[in-house]
């Protein structure tokens, strides 16, 4: 099954669309040093200038180049999402593997802890933390990851339990394999699709969260962000400028979320056997 997964992915329209969009965005961001000529924090330009050769998307109310802002904001959002996804994955995978491998009391503790975290709405905690402590986005990402690892842990634990009961694990143990060997050679490779799914879905969630928080103005106002851009642009929606100020961040955000969502969907569809019949 694992061998033709790559082939099946390549034929899946969701995957092609998701990978295409994400690829384009990443290519776009990677080429930003060539495209962005202005410092996004520079307030030297004439406010509300319409798009021109100098300013591709015009200038905002504070005299800042909107295109530069857009690029910086997208980068920030993407970084935030990737960081959260990664940390989430590490915590979740470790917790899941640990509790499935040892069972017993460690399993009990970790699983009850994850239930508690699942019950707490991450948005509320994040808003409170952001409002009261004003942490840097890096720490905020860590807080978000610390709140949202349980789903990954549960999925990894469940799959580990299934794989662990497999005959080839028994065989391997009977041959005298150590626990580390079994985890490295037998368990980790089996869980590989779950890492991908977990990482992508958490990254998507985190990006959305970052945009929401900055839209609400809970993040550092000096830090460029898509949410903040939308917020500011909305204040001047009656001006003609909205299509070059409001529209680009909205489109970019939509594309970003869409790309990642499509990826997550197609990965889940291919790797999660339970979804095979439904989708």
């Amino acid at each position: 099954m694992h061998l033709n997964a790559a082939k099946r992915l390549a034929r899946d329209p969701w995957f092609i669309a998701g990978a295409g969009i994400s690829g384009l965005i990443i290519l776009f961001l990677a080429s930003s040093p060539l495209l962005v000529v202005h410092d996004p924090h520079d307030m030297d330009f004439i406010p509300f200038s319409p798009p021109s050769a100098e300013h591709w998307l015009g200038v905002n109310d504070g005299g800042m180049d909107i295109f530069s802002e857009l690029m910086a904001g997208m980068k920030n959002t993407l970084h935030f999402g990737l960081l959260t996804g990664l940390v989430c994955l590490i915590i979740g995978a470790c917790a899941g593997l640990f509790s499935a491998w040892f069972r017993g009391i460690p399993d009990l503790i970790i699983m009850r802890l994850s239930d508690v975290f699942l019950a707490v709405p991450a948005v509320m905690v994040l808003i409170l933390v952001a409002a009261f402590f004003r942490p840097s986005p890096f720490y905020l990402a860590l807080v978000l990851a610390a709140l949202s690892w349980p789903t990954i842990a549960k999925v990894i634990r469940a799959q580990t339990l299934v794989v662990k009961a497999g005959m080839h694990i028994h065989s391997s143990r009977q041959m005298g394999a150590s626990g580390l060997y079994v985890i490295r050679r037998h368990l980790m490779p089996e869980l590989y699709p779950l890492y991908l799914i977990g990482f992508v879905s958490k990254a998507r969630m985190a990006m959305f969260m970052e945009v929401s928080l900055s839209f609400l103005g809970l993040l550092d106002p000096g830090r460029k962000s898509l949410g903040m851009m939308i917020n500011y642009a909305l204040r001047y929606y009656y001006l003609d400028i909205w299509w070059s100020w409001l529209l680009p961040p909205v489109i970019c955000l939509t594309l970003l979320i869409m790309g990642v969502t499509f990826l997550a969907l197609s990965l889940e569809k291919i790797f999660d056997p339970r979804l095979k019949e439904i989708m």
Partner: protein
Amino acid sequence: MNLTIKNLRVTYVSNEHRLLALDRVNLELTPGKVIALVGESGSGKTTLGKAVMGLLPDYARVKGSVSLESLELLSLPAPEMNKLRWSRISMLFQNGAESLNPVYRILDQVAEPLIQKQGFSRKDAGLQAQKALEQTGLDPGLGSRFPHEVSGGEMQRCLLAMALIMSPEIIILDEPTASLDAMNKTLIRQVILGAKNKGQAVLVITHDLDLARDTADEAVVLYLGQVMEVLPAVELFLAPRHPYTLALARSYPALDTHRDLGGIRGDAFYRTVHRHREENGNIRFHSHLIGPDQEHEHCHATPGGCLFVDRCTQALPECREKEIAIQETDGYELRCLRGGIATLLRLKSISKSYAGKTALHPVDLELKAGEIFCLVGESGSGKTTLAMIGAALLKQDSGSRIYSNRNMDQWIRQDYLSLAGKIGLVHQHPAQAVSHRFSVFEIISEPLKIQGYYSRQEILEKVLSALKDVHLSTEPEFLSRYPHELNMGALQRICIARALVTGPSLLIADEPTSSLDPSVQAKVLKMILDLQIEKGLTMLFVTHDIGLARKIGDRMGVMLAGRMVESGPAAQILNKSAHPYTRLLINGSGSQVHDGPVSLKAGRDRGCPFVSRCGWKRDLCVNDNPETRQTSQGDHFVRCHFPLN
């Protein structure tokens, strides 16, 4: 009159070397007793007969003594010896047809000893001979025919009549039943038993183990001129103690053995002693074993070691070096450093329960080196649990495990890796037993990598030889295939190769063929049997299919509701099953046995677990769980209040 053979040593001398045909053989023939001398051809059986008769060729050197009461036969002058022959000691020669004169009538030839030795008149002798011929069941008119006019079986019986005609005290029969059909064999058997009842001493030299078992009191097993084992003949098939005897019995197509024929690995050799003149002028003798196709290429036998070592299934390094004397214990004589067939795995009062539900009540299991033990029973009877405890994959709740004389539980704690390399495990579903992410090479090399002390080159060599053992391709293209590209049969072979790659002495197979179709199953089973013979593997074979167990099992254990209800030699269990449940397994649902579910309820512990389905049950069975008891047939145990037969 007793014939006593002491330290008999016969060497055939040629220019180059001496062929040691008999090496310090002791044997005693007493009146009214039949002794069977068995062994492969080349083991020196006929030489022994000829030595007693004083008929060895000139180039034979004989040492030791053969005495009839106080009369030493070896030093007897030829005319004296001639008097003894036929009158006191007679011998039926192998391919005796050639020893009859083609131009005389049979009757005359049979009568000849009487005329020659006892001075009978021709007429009397003729009448006597006619009677003797009729006693062996021959047609009265046969005596007037010429040797070329009678069939092989009739000829053999004529010769037997000739050997018996003077009622000698000692009769030596060399392959009396070779090339005879079943009817003639039965007649010869009767003649032998008749001679025994008349108080004659009979030595039957044969490779026909059936004949040996049915006629002889004692069987002497000869290998390369050495006596390997002396045992009651009835135990030849049931309880052989020397690996060689077991292998002989397994190779013999006995009617009541259902198992496919095995063989003995390697070839029978000739044993020669070679003379070397060393530089200092001393002459040194030097032992060789020469195979049939290695006339000039000598393989040196280590002086003093066991002769059977290269073909033995349980040889230790010491077997090669230490001289092993024949030892006598309660009616047996045995030449084996390990004291006979060793017990490889011994599980003692093993019990196990899963979450309060008892899977195994205390169960005993003994695996002897080199045998295939089949564990049969319906699903849920605990056979897999028992096998997995034997494979060290599960831990028992109570009881002890001993693997080649070492406490397994201790071994697992101290150094599991070294134990793991000695036990191979094959699972029921090959597709689940391998990781689908591993290539063929990765699957088979996994145990070696886990063991960790092999170089890349070594691993490749071992993997390739394991693949050869299971008759699979060793092409690089095949090595890099993945499980889903292979069929079930090939995959199961790969699993077997994986189990064998570390060179284990025990293979535990849990329903290894039940997921295969019959034609593939047949191939895999045949391969397993070949492996057993070639590698001397001991095998615990778990199966629900008694028909399959019958084809491969040397011994068998029947399990029911976590108990071993019957165990013993496979032929015994199949032909004379003592437990009603075994009957049920063999016959499907027999008329006396009701088919119904086994109750595993806790309350059932009081009575026999089979009581609800048993047609022979009595009041005692309902309330009292029977203990294991031994049946009258040796190594056969049954757990039943009222065993059948």
